[in-house]
């Protein structure tokens, strides 16, 4: 299938929209009618053709516009992309991982031709045709991690592994749920998760770290996470919170369906072969409440999850003030009938 790439914005006039195809394949994150933290990891194996779980790095109709948005954010704030000096090799590992996966899984969009260490990379949607020497930084216009992540949807945290811990020593972060790479770079797994309420006491991070430290090459894992965003804003960074925070005001029963978006992160985890680093892509999918409730099962379930969510989580996720309105609006679409297990729409 050839993808029709949207021409859309994720700021200002917010022309972002999902096609019917994108709505149908949206990674709805709730497999039951309630939500609590869990490690919820599963193997990142190809699953359900057409779904966001089919390919190693999902490419969808938002690709080209998301990459433009990333370039815009980086021009305003170059500190969104940082790599400590010992992480360059991991950046090359990531170049190889992404180029090989995309060329193999989307041959109509991407090509990789290798002649020893001389590589030619063709990215048709972005109009890139570059030849470079693998492992020679001077042959690329950016450092290797920055080069490839300017061409790949999702944020990337590249984690060094030492002292039985993971260290956030490199990253490309322009579509984040309110955390700062510039502040967190160099932190270990427990430090950068420090502000998350409840999960430490529940032992979530100890178990998650144990799992992640043992991820092997060729055995990637994945999980979903979620939050809420008013307007389809990819860059909900703390750096710009003084600009976007105010958007949370002014929701009404009339405009909430259009403005309020469920924000889902498809998080994947790959071991990198030369550096033994772990790369942690965090891919953001947005869907408006209006589009979400076109799937009756999702509408009923989202109503119940938001209504019953513990107050601490609604506060941490930043929508405690708007929760009553969300619940009231969503309740129109919940007739109380049971929902089936799992995340997929019923008509499938």
């Amino acid at each position: 299938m050839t993808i029709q790439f949207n021409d859309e914005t994720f700021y200002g006039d917010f022309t972002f929209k999902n096609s019917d195809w994108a709505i149908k394949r949206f990674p709805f994150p709730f497999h039951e009618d309630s939500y609590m933290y869990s490690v919820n990891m599963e193997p990142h194996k190809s699953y359900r053709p057409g779904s966001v779980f089919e390919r190693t790095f999902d490419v969808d109709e938002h690709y080209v516009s998301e990459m433009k948005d990333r370039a815009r954010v980086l021009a305003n704030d170059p500190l969104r992309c940082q790599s400590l000096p010992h992480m360059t090799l991991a950046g090359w590992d990531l170049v190889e991982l992404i180029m090989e996966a995309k060329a193999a899984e989307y041959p109509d969009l991407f090509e990789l031709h290798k002649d020893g260490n001389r590589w030619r990379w063709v990215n048709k949607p972005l109009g890139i045709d570059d030849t470079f020497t693998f492992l020679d930084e001077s042959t690329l216009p950016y450092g290797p991690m920055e080069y490839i992540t300017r061409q790949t949807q999702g944020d990337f945290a590249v984690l060094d592994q030492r002292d039985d811990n993971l260290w956030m020593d490199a990253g490309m972060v322009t579509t984040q749920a309110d955390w700062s790479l510039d502040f967190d770079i160099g932190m270990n797994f427990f430090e950068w998760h420090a502000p998350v309420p409840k999960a430490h006491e529940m032992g979530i991070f100890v178990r998650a770290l144990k799992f992640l430290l043992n991820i092997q090459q060729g055995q990637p894992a994945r999980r979903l996470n979620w939050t809420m965003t008013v307007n389809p804003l990819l860059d909900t960074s703390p750096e710009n919170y003084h600009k976007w925070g105010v958007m949370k005001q002014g929701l009404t029963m009339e405009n909430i369906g259009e403005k309020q978006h469920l924000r889902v992160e498809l998080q994947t985890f790959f071991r990198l072969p030369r550096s033994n680093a772990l790369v942690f892509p965090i891919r953001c999918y947005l869907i408006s409440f209006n589009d979400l409730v076109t799937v009756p099962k999702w509408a009923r379930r989202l109503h119940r999850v938001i209504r019953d969510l513990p107050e601490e989580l609604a506060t941490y996720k930043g929508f405690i003030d708007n929760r009553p309105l969300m619940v009231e609006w969503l309740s129109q679409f919940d007739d109380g009938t049971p929902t089936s297990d799992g995340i997929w729409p019923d008509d499938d």
Partner: protein
Amino acid sequence: MSKTEFPPSITSRPVYGELEARSGSGHLMIADAEGAEAILDLANSADADFWAKAHIIYIPKKTGTKYSSQLEALGAGKYYAGPSYEAAQSRIRRALQDCHMGTQVYLSGTESLMGQAMAEATAAGIPHTAIQTEHRGSTARRMQCVHCKGITEDVTTDPFECSHCGLSLFVRDHYSRRLAAFQGVRVDAEDPGNIPEKVELFK
């Protein structure tokens, strides 16, 4: 007594111990204000030959001469008192660069001093197992504004005004060792102008 019991906090917030004299090829001691008390306490248990190998870098801040003569009287091989951390920074870097294998590093006083000196020591390759810390004196915080990235020293209230961009920021416990700073975030971002009254949280 200037010791502070910090309430339990999140996992990025540093915790501090008590200085003890250890055996080592050298002893680099960096302290500010009431941090001098930790060094003076340590002196009670240090061996006689400890001080010849010691280098004390001290920033009295508002304590003036209250501790400096006592510190000087310890007889350290090198003793320096300076007007500010910034003024002492090049000396601190040089002292860390000159450290030999087995040098012990002792940091005491405010979180700002310990955090900055810790970052310097780590960057200089001193193993964390050779660095001790002890908090004394002011609990004022060194804050980074997440918006403009400017650092405001000696923050005692929540919220406070960023000394660079002027936004009113609330004080988080989230702490970066690389920046040696806590994070400040605009308090009225969602409701501009609605700034809560300042509370003195730190002294």
